[in-house]
């Protein structure tokens, strides 16, 4: 089986079968990462550019090393510091990258819909590495892979997503992906950070952490951006932490084997307590490794590989 699509822009418009194919392929990819010699020749002669219009060390590095483990040539374009300052349009920047012969770009942009716009205007394959408040499909896929490793299934789990749902692409992609497995997704956060009519996505809304956590299998804690306070969306980080900081104490109502995920980097003492961050329930470090595996799987499947070829 192959991934029969030019681009990976989000999980909203992708089938459960495609998601499953990526998750299945990520498993042997993880083996490569854990080997002594971390190199497979599969993508030799292919070129990947990471094009990040927003700062991100971990996602960018994750894409870069994923490409390298599969022998692709990878280049990081520092677009924030070069073309934008020179006033170049996005269309021109993308054309320039395309003309250098890249096969695929992983794109991060602060504005929703930008990878979709780029994908319409280039022959290169486009992987959305996060666009505005819209989607972050590779993050959701690595979250799902991590859950799958521990729970052995994704079907019908109860998952709570905590924090700034309004601005979160991680939340949206997780909602779309998990819903395809019949999960009950709950969102919880201050009322100012819950977007309108989100229930129509099939999720349940909570303002109270303890109620939201009742019986959940997984908690995904979102990173809180300090600038939201400047926009008067909540009064202070202290008050946010009082109401929504996830700590071991607050896991009482959840299932005993509850998993806690965080896309990183963590604000310890704000959205997650330091002791929980270092506990065995917190999978943030595993997520990092799984992120590389999932991105390897996506690059591999998009550039023509099929599931059966991975092992060698």
């Amino acid at each position: 089986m192959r991934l029969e699509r030019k681009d990976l822009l989000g999980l909203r418009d992708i089938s459960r079968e495609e998601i499953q194919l990526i998750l299945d392929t990520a498993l042997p990819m993880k083996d490569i990462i854990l080997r002594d010699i971390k190199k497979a020749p599969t993508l030799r002669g292919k070129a990947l550019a990471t094009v990040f219009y927003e700062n991100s060390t971990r996602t960018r590095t994750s894409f870069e090393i994923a490409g390298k483990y599969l022998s692709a040539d990878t280049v990081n374009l520092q677009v924030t510091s070069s073309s934008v300052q020179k006033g170049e349009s996005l269309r021109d920047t993308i054309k320039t990258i395309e003309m250098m012969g890249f096969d695929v770009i992983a794109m991060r942009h602060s504005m929703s819909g930008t990878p979709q716009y780029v994908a319409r205007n280039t022959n290169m394959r486009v992987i959305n590495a996060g666009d505005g408040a819209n989607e972050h499909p590779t993050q959701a896929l690595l979250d799902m892979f991590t859950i799958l490793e521990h729970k052995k299934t994704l079907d019908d789990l109860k998952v709570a997503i905590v924090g700034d749902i309004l601005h979160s692409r991680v939340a949206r992609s997780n909602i779309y992906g998990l819903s395809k497995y019949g999960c009950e997704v709950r969102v919880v956060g201050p009322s100012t950070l819950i977007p309108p009519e989100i229930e129509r996505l099939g999720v349940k809304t909570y303002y109270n952490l303890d109620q939201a956590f009742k019986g959940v299998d997984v908690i995904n804690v979102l990173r809180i951006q300090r600038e939201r306070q400047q926009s008067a969306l909540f009064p202070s980080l202290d008050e946010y932490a009082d109401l929504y900081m996830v700590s071991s104490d607050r896991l009482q109502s959840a299932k005993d084997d509850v998993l806690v995920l965080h896309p990183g980097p963590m604000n310890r003492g704000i959205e997650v307590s330091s002791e929980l961050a270092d506990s065995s329930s917190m999978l943030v470090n595993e997520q990092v490794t799984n992120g590389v595996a999932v991105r390897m799987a996506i690059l591999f499947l998009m550039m023509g590989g099929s599931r059966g070829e991975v092992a060698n």
Partner: protein
Amino acid sequence: MKLLIKNGHLLDPISKIDRQMDILIENGCIQELGEKLEIEDAIQIDASGKIVCPGFIDLHVHLREPGFEYKEDIASGTRAAAAGGFTTVCCMPNTDPVIDNAAVANFVRERALLSGVIHVLPIGCITRQQEGELLSPMAELVAAGCVGVSDDGKPVMNARIMRNALDYAKMFPLPVMVHCEDENLSWEGQMHEGYYSTLYGLRGIPTLAEETMIARDLMLAEYTGAHLHICHVSTAGSVQLIRAAKQKGVAVTCEVTPHHLTLTDEIVGDYDPDTKVNPPLRSQKHLDALLEGLQDGTIDCIATDHAPHHWEDKDCEYNMAAFGISGLETAVAVLMDRLVRSGKLELAELVRFFTSAPARILGLAPPVLAAGAAADLTIIDPDIEKKVDPKNFYSKGKNNPYKGMHLKGWPWMTIVDGEIIAHDGKIQV
């Protein structure tokens, strides 16, 4: 030159004509209406199956000249209007320089006479530089031919300034045409706030941004007794507020655009910047309320808010794209196809919304089909079906969300002062 339009179905809500008749035009005026007219030396036009109406007026158009000729100019904008069935347009003053003095207003009118192909009536600014702080010289603007004042594109955020503008404008009297938007509530918004803004992850523009400002301006209009005209009404709440104000006798009129009547926020889904417009495309509930407002007289007229942009202003990230739809060349077809054909709007009402209704708002004599009247005519072919292709627009602005759609019922001929300006979508002069 004599022009004889034969066999057309005349439709004029003012002179209450609704039947097949012939029209003889001579020296720029309608000479005679009658059955089976035979004039030997006249050029004959067979309008069988066509609807012959008084010339359409669009009281809300951005012609962009002076200053933004790369987006549109008076030559291209008036050709777009003529192709779209309009014989008169009012142009908004957010040019560069803005129309806040007689020199710019006169420039626009002179350019319209030199390079335009239809009538152009300028709208002046409410405040100098559209900065919302000092009143523009309204007497000077009236003397230079302005028919209303507007800071369209921006609200007048300061209530005291708006109160003074209304108080001052009422002595001419000039309609004060307001763009109602509380900029604090619409802050950084890209589309209608609701389910689809949640789905697409774009910052929403709440209906509140429009409604709170309309509520304020209605109170100011009631207090001052001035004529308030509310531009591009887009929400159910706005319709309700205006309906209640009219019942109280407030001197308020308002307009709605074809796109707010026919497109929902769902189509933003592809992040196509041609769907980006201010006020934004709303949800179905609001579309229904706008239609009801048209039907019960709360909404007075239809106007395009034609907002042409250069392709580079639309071929970019959604957030970076300019707001606006280039709508002159599809307005009539959209309404014919989506509202008249489906029975939601009577054809005679559509004609009224584009003729006597805007004329009344502007304080002009309504265009009529009658002997002695100026020969400004809009002729519609209700049966022709065409695909919208912005590449063929006369407007420089190709930003139109109806692109690729098949619409039935198009303007067939536009006659201004007795001269055929457009025929079957093609300019004849």
